[in-house]
């Protein structure tokens, strides 16, 4: 508070008095507090989503066995668990942590602003998000349990309760998802406006750190894609509760219509969460290879291309849903096209590493793991984008393993990369490197052991969303069951290793080494503020003189050149 007071009085404005706990941490309009609120809520929801994965993976490996800590998984439970695991991990973990938490925390700091342009809207955004999380959690405990119609909510399964058996849960699920979108739309308006209008003097378009650009592009994509799904959600809600028939073919509706509305949003959504993760990886690998980002402008144009292309690929989710085969050809071409800009980004990152003086700190390890693991996810996607191959792979565990190889690097590895890198800024303490590395290897190795077996099982024809494979003689060969047990055991190991992270987090908060302003010798503006930055961030707002990635410039004494130093 001391800095805050001097900062305020130095500007001749009247100062805040001591703020109470509530106005400082709960109802704060400070972008950093809102960002941390998003992050902790996201971590909490991640624990729930992880626990759900544990419960249904146990059922798949050991069908009909009482799961320790959960009990017997009934078929209806199983449906609710897989549905809500998917929903939570994408909408309540990947989105809040990658887009909202890092976006809120970093954008004003990285562009040299004292707060978001609309601070009260920012607070409202988190409050709506919190409400959505509460609604979702409540839906598990209503009569019939949580929604069990899969996270894509295809009608008629989602529209008619005689099919999904969760009459209340499915409506609450829709309400929760709708509220969550509203929260991110409010947040996105803030991100874009702040990055455009509140930048420090001197910060031109090509001086903006990559993660800020990527979050801005992701927000625009989210805004442009979510409208049709919101329309679809309203229609589905009316089908469930008022008796309309938007998606009921018997009464003049069309169930495929939902799939179009859903995936028109759903596919750009993949890139909405991917871009922030690739952005923070760009910022991390430049710092730890002490090298300028290779081809900044090319990366930026690539991001724009990805954004545009991502709106033209959605029907590749529907190759077997009965769409016109000629349309399938078009979407095959666009889907294979979009792998080009993404592959280009990965090559650019590898080119950035080439010849750099690399330090393998924990954040750097996570960033490298992101590139390696995401590449596997991207390469396996090519098989699914080609309509001919997809007919065989559709709705198998191959698809499941593919998108976990994309979403896990994005949401989990991306989060750990970001938090281990910006923890010193957020809390003023360093995280423990040894524990960080134990946690890293204990997460990445089991992750591969979970999903490589699932690729194999998927290629052998194992279908998704099946409660008990012992009912299917073709899918219950001993080697298949062994692979399921291997995947589940690896999941248990991985979940156990997450406790290392929690211990490291709490221990570092308590006893970590003091970080100082700029522990990584990084160029971007957030490292010129105190750690943690006070309300208002700087006593005097910075001015920018150069781009964010001037590392190892020849002829300079130090190998970094902060953006705010005149020369």
């Amino acid at each position, binding site marked *: 508070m001391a800095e*805050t007071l001097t*900062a*305020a009085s*130095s*500007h001749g*404005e*009247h*100062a*805040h008095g001591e703020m109470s706990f509530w106005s400082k941490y709960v109802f704060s*309009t400070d972008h950093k507090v809102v960002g941390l609120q998003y992050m902790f809520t996201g971590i909490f929801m991640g624990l729930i989503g992880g626990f759900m994965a544990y419960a249904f993976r146990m059922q798949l490996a050991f069908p009909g066995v009482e799961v320790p800590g959960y009990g017997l998984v009934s078929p209806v439970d199983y449906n609710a668990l897989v549905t809500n695991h998917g929903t939570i991990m994408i909408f309540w973990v990947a989105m809040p942590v990658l887009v909202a938490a890092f976006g809120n925390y970093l954008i*004003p700091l990285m562009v040299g*602003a*004292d*707060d978001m*342009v*609309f*601070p*009260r*809207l920012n607070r409202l955004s988190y409050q709506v998000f919190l409400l959505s999380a509460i609604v979702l959690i409540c839906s598990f405990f209503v009569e019939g349990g949580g929604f069990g119609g899969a996270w894509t909510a295809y009608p008629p399964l989602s529209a008619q309760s005689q099919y999904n058996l969760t009459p209340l849960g499915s409506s609450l699920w829709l309400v929760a998802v709708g509220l969550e979108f509203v929260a991110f*739309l409010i947040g996105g*308006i*803030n991100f*874009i*406006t*702040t990055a*455009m*209008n*509140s*930048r*420090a*003097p001197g910060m031109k378009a090509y001086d903006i750190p990559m993660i800020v650009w990527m979050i801005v592009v992701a927000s625009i994509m989210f*805004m*442009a894609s*979510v*409208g*049709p*799904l*919101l*329309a*679809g959600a*309203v*229609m589905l809600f*009316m089908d469930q509760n*008022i*008796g*309309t*028939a*938007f998606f009921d073919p018997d*009464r*003049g*509706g*069309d169930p495929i*219509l939902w799939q179009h*509305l859903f995936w*028109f949003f759903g596919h750009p959504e993949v890139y909405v969460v991917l871009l922030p993760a690739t952005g923070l990886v760009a910022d991390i690998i430049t710092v730890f290879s002490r090298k300028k980002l290779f081809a900044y402008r090319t990366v930026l144009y690539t991001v724009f291309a990805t954004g545009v292309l991502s709106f033209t690929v959605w029907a590749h989710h529907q190759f077997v849903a009965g769409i016109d085969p000629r349309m399938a050809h078009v979407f095959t071409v666009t889907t294979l096209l979009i792998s080009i800009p993404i592959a280009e980004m990965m090559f650019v990152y590898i080119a950035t590493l080439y010849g750099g003086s690399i330090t393998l700190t924990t954040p750097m390890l996570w960033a490298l793991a992101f590139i390696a693991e995401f590449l596997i996810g991207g390469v396996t996607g090519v098989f699914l984008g080609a309509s001919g191959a997809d007919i065989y792979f559709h709705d198998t565990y191959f698809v499941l393993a593919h998108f976990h190889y994309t979403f896990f690097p994005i949401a989990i590895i991306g989060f750990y990369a970001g938090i281990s890198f910006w923890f010193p800024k957020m809390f003023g303490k360093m995280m423990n490197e040894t524990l960080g590395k134990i946690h890293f290897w204990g997460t990445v190795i089991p992750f591969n052991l979970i999903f490589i077996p699932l690729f194999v099982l998927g290629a052998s024809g194992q279908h998704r969303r099946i409660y008990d494979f012992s009912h299917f003689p073709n899918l219950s060969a001993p080697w298949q069951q062994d692979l399921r047990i291997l995947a589940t055991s690896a999941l248990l190991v991985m979940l156990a290793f997450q406790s290392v992270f929690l211990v490291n987090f709490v221990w570092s908060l308590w006893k970590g080494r003091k970080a100082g302003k700029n522990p990584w010798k990084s160029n971007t503006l957030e490292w010129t503020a105190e750690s943690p930055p006070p*309300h*208002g961030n*700087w*006593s005097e*707002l910075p001015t920018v003189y150069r781009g964010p990635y001037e590392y190892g410039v020849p002829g300079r004494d130090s190998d970094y050149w902060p953006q705010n130093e005149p020369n």
Partner: protein
Amino acid sequence: MPISVTNQDYGRIHLVADSRRQPLLASSVMGMLLFVLIEAMLFAGMISAYSIIRSGAMIWPPPDQPRLPIEETAINTAALMLSGLLLFVAHRRFRRDRARARTPLLLSMLLGAVFVVFQGVEWVALIREGFTLTSSSQGSFFYLIVGMHALHAVAALGVLAYVALRLQRGWLASSQLAAAEVFWYFVVGMWPIIYLVVYL
């Protein structure tokens, strides 16, 4: 620095950062434009869904459904267009002489309110004739799309009322007027599309 000083002219929190550069678009206008982008995509989703169902139907409009009031709505459409025009006049006057902006602004709001009320009257008549949310897929889409538009119209009228209040008290910033205009022009501009697609 907590620059939460309540400025008497504007009555809102002022930050330092966005006063350090001259943005192309004021933050309030940009925020509203982004909001309008979201809502435009919402309507695009509903209207394209409607077109898909309509083009896939064997018989359209569905049998036993009353005819939509095309002529009356055309007049109502003209009222809404005029309302948008009056808001533009208010904007022009505001730039020269603030006091003279009041009349066109209030007239614009009045015409907007007339539009909403007339839509409500029309709905009551249609429901009496047996055209409801569940009577056919035409009915479902009609009430969904027109209702969503009415919701936006009411919200935008609320924003205009807020603007009128601030104008009355002399607190209105031109960026606030511009943001409210963006919202109202969206409501006005969306309507002819809905009229063409849903009514005709």
